[in-house]
């Protein structure tokens, strides 16, 4: 086994050397010579960000629970460390055994956001692994990618050997088992890829060919649409089906997560309480790709949380899901947990604001009033109907009224600018809501309310995502984004209201990549070659380099972002089946344009297709229920 030596002066010269040494509590140490399958799991961002990610902890723990597998971690080195590694020709190494990443059997990336893609190319390069899949040999690891952003694999297709679509709990054990047999028989890498195609969630880009039309697409200037997307070998499936974990109460859960030695972004225990979301927000990708809704039972959550706390020593726990309010046993869970662990702080993301939750929040924060948050997303009821966000102005004002009379003094509001059909009136609605809230505070009883109030309005830019109802929708240009932002900013003149916004061009790039095809891979490669990395970090984001790359690669924003895509055009991600039908998404998009909301699937089924697809979850139970009656 080779080991990488990192001289002390390197670690002493970089910021936070603890990022590069491993050695944490619960890190797994095995003998690499006795584990036939070696995996490097890479979260392509800096250590503190990656270590906060539940998916990493889950797969790391699960892989290492298998006797034949040794999974180690690697992160994107911060630019100061990259400089040192390159200057001294030190290859990127795993944190546990300091082995070169290149010596692994697999290198698995999780794709969480588009703007981490240049980091992936950088990690490959620093590891001495050819960037393009076609250039790799039997000496290189097999490069895997998964995670929510892998729902459109195409922009990363030339760099990845295979994509795993859906939830990792299901198939990896079988993949590794087959790999071990394959390795013992002495087979080649390409042959191995063919041996896992029958599993279902595996997409091997090299086994498919894309052809383009010979004329520009509808609404585009010069870029042709996809004419055909076909397997180039008989055993490659035409459709890739996402994997779903049937029972989250019995599937693997990381009760022994690695506790980072450095303070991470979310420095606390993480307990997922359910997966999926009953709401059908039309801009939301996660809501669709994580379907169906599957709950972990209250007992499972309590027992598991207790184990995590015992194994880590955390004094804070986060109960996570896409919409915490919809957990059926939330009240009992909180009460029982709080009784058992009175000194453990609980953080609950995305909670509806009502008397119950306010009481809860105060109890959890031990009397501290931490501020309340609303994800209103749009400023008018009309636009909220368009996006199917089931929150009303009255909900928000009622929540604020309650909070203010309880002494709360901070309100945070989140919105998106550039949503389909948005007009100035909708943007005006954002500012108006801010003023209304200040007004509610003013009208609150003087004895009860706080001395001052602070309302924070934050906007991000809407970026259409694959597998959301808005996957065909046009995206607003960065100039238009900026105009909307300026307009809104001009409307907010009250010193009690603060306005925060995001960079607009970054959203344009995110849009191109999110709905990109294989041609966008050139853009990612070119931008990386020019020095782009850590694009999600404003200190390192280089708009100028991205613009140059866009020009060199002839990427047409009109084609990828600005036009509305016709329904009969082949979308780059059409070969992936997430269980939600294209027909249903289309219907949702049409209803959006008419401003018609759709009831959430906790109340009634709107026929998205998941019921026929899933073997588990809310849909499955409903199907079984109707079969019996």
């Amino acid at each position, binding site marked *: 086994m080779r080991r990488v030596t990192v*001289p002390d*002066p390197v670690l002493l010269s970089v910021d936070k050397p*603890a990022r590069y040494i491993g*050695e944490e509590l619960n890190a797994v140490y095995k003998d690499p010579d006795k584990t036939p399958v070696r995996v490097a799991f890479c979260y392509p961002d800096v250590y503190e960000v990656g270590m906060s990610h539940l998916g990493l902890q889950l797969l790391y723990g699960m892989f290492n629970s298998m006797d034949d597998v040794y999974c180690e971690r690697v992160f994107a080195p911060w630019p100061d460390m990259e400089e040192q590694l390159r200057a001294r020709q030190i290859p990127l190494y795993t944190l546990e055994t300091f082995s070169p990443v290149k010596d692994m059997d697999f290198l698995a990336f999780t794709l969480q956001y588009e703007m981490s893609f240049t980091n992936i190319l950088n990690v490959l390069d620093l590891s001495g692994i050819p960037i393009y899949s076609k250039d790799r040999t039997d000496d290189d690891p097999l490069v895997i990618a998964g995670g929510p952003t892998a729902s459109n694999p195409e922009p990363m297709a030339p760099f990845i050997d295979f994509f795993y679509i859906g939830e990792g709990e299901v198939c990896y054990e079988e993949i590794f088992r087959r790999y071990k047999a394959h390795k013992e028989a002495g087979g080649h890498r390409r042959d191995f890829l063919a041996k896992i195609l029958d599993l279902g969630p595996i997409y091997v880009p090299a086994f498919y060919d894309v052809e383009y039309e010979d004329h520009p697409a509808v609404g585009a200037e010069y870029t042709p649409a996809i004419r055909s997307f076909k397997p180039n070998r008989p055993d490659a499936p035409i459709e890739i089906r996402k994997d779903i974990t049937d029972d989250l109460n019995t599937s693997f859960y990381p009760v022994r997560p690695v*506790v980072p*030695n*450095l303070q991470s972004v979310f420095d606390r225990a993480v307990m997922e309480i359910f997966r999926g979301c009953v709401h059908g927000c039309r801009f939301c990708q996660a809501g669709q790709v994580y379907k169906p809704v599957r709950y972990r039972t209250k007992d499972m959550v309590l027992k598991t949380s207790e184990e995590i706390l015992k194994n*880590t020593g955390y004094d804070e726990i986060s109960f996570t899901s896409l919409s915490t309010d919809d957990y059926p046993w939330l009240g009992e869970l909180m009460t029982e947990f709080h009784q058992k662990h009175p000194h453990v702080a609980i953080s609950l993301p995305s909670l509806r604001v009502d008397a119950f939750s306010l009481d809860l929040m105060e109890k959890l924060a031990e009397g501290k009033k931490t501020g309340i948050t609303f994800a209103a997303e749009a400023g008018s009821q009309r636009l909220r109907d368009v996006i199917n966000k089931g929150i009303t102005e009255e909900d928000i004002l009622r929540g604020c009224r309650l909070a203010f009379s309880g002494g709360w003094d901070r309100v945070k509001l989140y919105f998106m600018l550039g949503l389909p059909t948005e007009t100035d009136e909708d943007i005006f609605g954002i500012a108006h809501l801010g003023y209304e809230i200040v007004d509610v505070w003013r009208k609150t009883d003087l004895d009860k309310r706080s001395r001052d109030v602070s309302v924070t309005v934050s906007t991000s830019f809407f970026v259409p995502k694959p597998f959301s109802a808005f996957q065909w929708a046009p995206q607003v240009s960065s100039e238009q984004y900026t105009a909307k932002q300026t307009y809104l900013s001009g409307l907010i003149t009250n010193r009690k209201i603060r306005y925060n916004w995001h960079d607009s061009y970054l959203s344009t790039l995110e849009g191109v990549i999110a709905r990109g095809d294989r041609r966008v891979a050139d853009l990612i490669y070119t931008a990386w070659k020019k020095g782009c990395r850590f694009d999600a970090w404003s200190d390192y984001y280089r708009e100028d380099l991205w613009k140059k790359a866009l020009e060199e690669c002839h990427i047409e924003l009109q084609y990828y972002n600005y036009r509305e895509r016709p329904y009969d055009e082949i979308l780059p991600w059409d070969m992936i089946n997430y269980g939600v039908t294209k027909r249903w998404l289309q219907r949702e998009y049409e209803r959006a344009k008419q401003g018609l909301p759709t009831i959430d699937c906790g109340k009634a089924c709107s026929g998205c297709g998941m019921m026929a697809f899933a073997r588990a979850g809310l849909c499955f139970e409903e199907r079984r229920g109707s079969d019996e009656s």
Partner: protein
Amino acid sequence: MNPERIKKRLVFEKTHRMRFVGHLDMMRIFQRAISREGIELVFSQGFNPHPRMSFARPLSLGQTSHVEIMDIELAGDIANDELIKRMNSALPVHLQVLAAYDMPEGAKPAMAIVTHAEYLIHLPERHQDEYADYLARFLEKPEITIQKLAKSKGRKQMVDLDIKPMICSLELTEPLTMRLLCLATEKENLKPDRMMKVFWETCGHPEQTGYELIERTGLYCQQEDGRLVDLISIMKDH
């Protein structure tokens, strides 16, 4: 109400790659390990309570030690063997508690009594035959000056500091090992890595800076008669 307050002194080691974990991060690791084991720390009063935990003298990033000392206050008593065992099961393998002692009533915290520290400096093989010569040249210097960030003329800025008076002894004990005894008071605490930077510059090899491995081997408290007493042996005698 006067809750029980048990003062313990712990000796711990920080070795291997753990030497790259900074002091503040290490404090959090200790705190978490203690809380994981359900051992209750006493917290300071006030608006922003923090656990009563203090260290004899923080170890610089990159240095190893088997003689680190930490004082903690617990809200209930626990047998020392038990404390060691439980903390170690909750600590990373290269940050481990070696010994625990009950603090006698009224004993001063370690950070208030440490006056001297001893280090072994392991040198790279590269210049093996020249170290005696280098050391002589280094010690001949009338002043050994380092730059230090300090408050001067009302603002923080880099100031020159002569550290020669802080070196009590520096000798080559083996062909590749130097032993350093130096001041380590709250006011005057010599950082051996800073000294080594000047060492390498003096012998014309600034590129070697950081290649030496520094190990702290002793923390001492100077008695009124001038004698240096090892902090750990004081505890053993109690």
